[in-house]
């Protein structure tokens, strides 16, 4: 038997009026909509976690211009001959099949923050309640004098995995003993801090394996120090003798010009000649983030360290390499970690899901020579207005071979893990 008191009468009436109001709302918009731009370590993870953890309560659309995704992480192992392209190429089929994520294969051209829509290359407008922007980096070709997008077809940057990786690999494999490699390393901040130096290691591994003794690898670096420097330099000497010559700005004095056709890199110090030039320019957030006013004057996007929400727009989250993530390096691991924080906060906003305090993590493994793996890692929390490092570690010089082998095997396990966490 039900007693209707004044108190619960009010509740009943309230419920009734809510019911009356609901259908119109439901007709207008059945479920809250999240759109994700970019299907990499940030975007794929965010889409997957929002769809998975909301159990269908949120409509998730992933926009990426490609049918497939080639991971930048482990692409150096393709260069070194340890993996093939197929093994680092993935797609979003399982996200669609398992979690009902809608995949749109198109270039997202612009964002209209007032209308809350993303406009595709063909003019279609995709509406959102919350938008995740995870476009990765753009290459700033003109940051290296004489370099250009066209020049990259001769002297690849290969800092986005795919055809550039294959071009670099083909050119590396075509070298003959006595021919040199010249790399121009990128200035901070850039994607994958240890990446250029792992790549140098892979170059050296390939040349050494072929028995080359007369080739040299020159690294012209705009930075005076770099990630895992002691570990790489120890490894280069140990495995490759004096094949690798790294030069900081105090030595080379700056790059004056690059002539890719002639294979020449001109610096204050000298002109270096290479049959293979690997030019890795400066980087900025993907163009859609910059054109939409999400970036600062330096070309990356400020975010709220507690949530990964854009500091420029309340309905937009920016994650991965495009964001300014404080002490976190730009890495696939970082993007995956940031994506989970963004996903949790978006679910909190749209469905009232519980939001826990943000904790971030990163680990980067690098391969120096067969079974000689090293790693660096950190944990992070929002503090003092940025994502701030809490603890960290780095492999030590002089570690024994067994530990280095274990570290390499661990990296293979990580690759299987993170790609399952993105695409599984």
């Amino acid at each position: 038997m039900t007693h209707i008191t004044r108190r619960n009468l009010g509740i009943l009436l309230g419920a009734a009026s809510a019911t009356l109001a609901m259908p119109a709302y439901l007709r207008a918009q059945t479920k809250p909509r999240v759109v994700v731009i970019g299907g990499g370590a940030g975007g794929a993870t965010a889409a997957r976690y929002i769809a998975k953890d909301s159990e269908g309560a949120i409509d998730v659309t992933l926009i990426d211009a490609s049918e497939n995704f080639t991971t930048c992480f482990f692409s150096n192992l393709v260069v070194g001959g340890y993996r093939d392209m197929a093994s680092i190429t993935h797609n979003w089929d399982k996200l669609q099949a398992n979690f009902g994520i809608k995949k749109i294969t198109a270039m997202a051209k612009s964002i209209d923050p007032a209308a809350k829509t993303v406009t595709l290359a063909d003019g279609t407008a995709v509406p959102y309640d919350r938008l995740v922007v995870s476009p990765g980096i753009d290459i700033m070709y003109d940051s290296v004098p004489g370099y250009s997008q066209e020049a990259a077809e001769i002297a690849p940057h290969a800092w986005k995995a795919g055809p550039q990786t294959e071009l670099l690999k083909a050119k590396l494999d075509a070298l003959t003993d006595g021919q040199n490699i010249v790399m121009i390393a990128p200035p901070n901040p850039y994607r994958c801090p240890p990446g250029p130096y792992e790549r140098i290691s892979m170059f050296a591994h390939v040349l050494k394996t072929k028995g080359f003794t007369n080739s040299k690898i020159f690294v012209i670096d705009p930075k005076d120090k770099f990630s895992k420097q002691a570990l790489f330099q120890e490894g280069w000497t140990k495995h490759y003798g004096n094949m690798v010559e790294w030069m900081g700005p105090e030595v080379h004095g700056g790059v004056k010009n690059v002539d890719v056709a002639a294979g020449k890199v001109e610096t204050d110090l000298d002109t270096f000649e290479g049959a293979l030039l690997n030019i890795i320019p400066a980087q900025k957030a993907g163009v859609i983030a910059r054109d939409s006013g999400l970036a600062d004057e330096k070309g990356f996007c400020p975010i709220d360290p507690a949530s990964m929400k854009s500091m420029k727009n309340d309905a937009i989250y920016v994650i991965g390499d495009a964001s300014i993530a404080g002490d976190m390096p730009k890495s696939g691991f970082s993007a995956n970690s940031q994506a989970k924080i963004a996903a949790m906060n978006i679910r909190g906003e749209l469905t009232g899901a519980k939001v826990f305090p943000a904790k971030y993590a990163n680990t980067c493994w690098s391969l120096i020579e067969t079974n000689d793996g090293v790693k660096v890692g950190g944990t992070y929390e929002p503090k003092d207005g940025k994502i701030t490092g809490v603890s960290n570690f780095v492999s030590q010089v002089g570690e024994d071979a067994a530990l280095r082998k274990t570290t390499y095997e661990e990296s293979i396990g990580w690759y299987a893990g993170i790609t399952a966490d993105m695409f599984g």
Partner: protein
Amino acid sequence: MKRLRFNRFSFKGNHTVPKGTGVELTRRRLLPVAVAMLAIPFASLSLAASLDDPVFKPCAGCHEIGPGAKHKIGPHLDAILGRKAGSIDGFKYSKAMKDAGEGGLAWDEKALDEYIAKPRDFIPGNRMSYRGMEKAEARAELVKWIVEKGKAEASPADLPETIVANAAPREFADAVLAIEGDKEFGQYLGGDCVTCHQMTGHADGIPSIVGLPKEYFVRALLEYKTNVRNNEVMKLRVVNLANEEIAALAAYFSSLEPK
């Protein structure tokens, strides 16, 4: 402030520290004390001695055998001869292993030998993260050893007072286990774990943590905290975890089933 009182520190074999000598620990003080106590050498235990045997070394990271053996990442191996594959209650096997048992696989010397030679080929899809032992003589020696050591009376998997060699003292694990872990919180924190440890329970160079027994999970994390285990990635993840967080993670991962 909540205080946890420990006045019991019993080793296997009924060696107990006299009552009244117990330490009173606040949660905050737990860790430094745990480190200090680990420095105390443990009494020589038959189980510990078994696990230190070089023959068993490839297995000891994940399996226990001998009196008091418990499940770790893998099931205990006591009385394995004749046992149906995937059949011990209380251990979460892969579907592949359970299917193999249902399909009639029981462990004898020959099956063990073939399995250890190439685990992934013998039972595709099983969880054991071991690449295989190539040398037939080494395998024969190991199988013989396992059969022999496991013969001693089959021990219940959850013998409460066992102390594993080099493990964090039971009291500290108990302090964490006394906390009811918040599974939802554990799922959130576990987001960091599943970047490497696959949710399916598959292992490709990084062990599976899906469906691990809660007690083992807690003890393992404490062992990273106290440098008994030394993987730097794991130590980094664990160093700043509060007991509530470890309990939450254990509650979450132990609740999952490998696929």
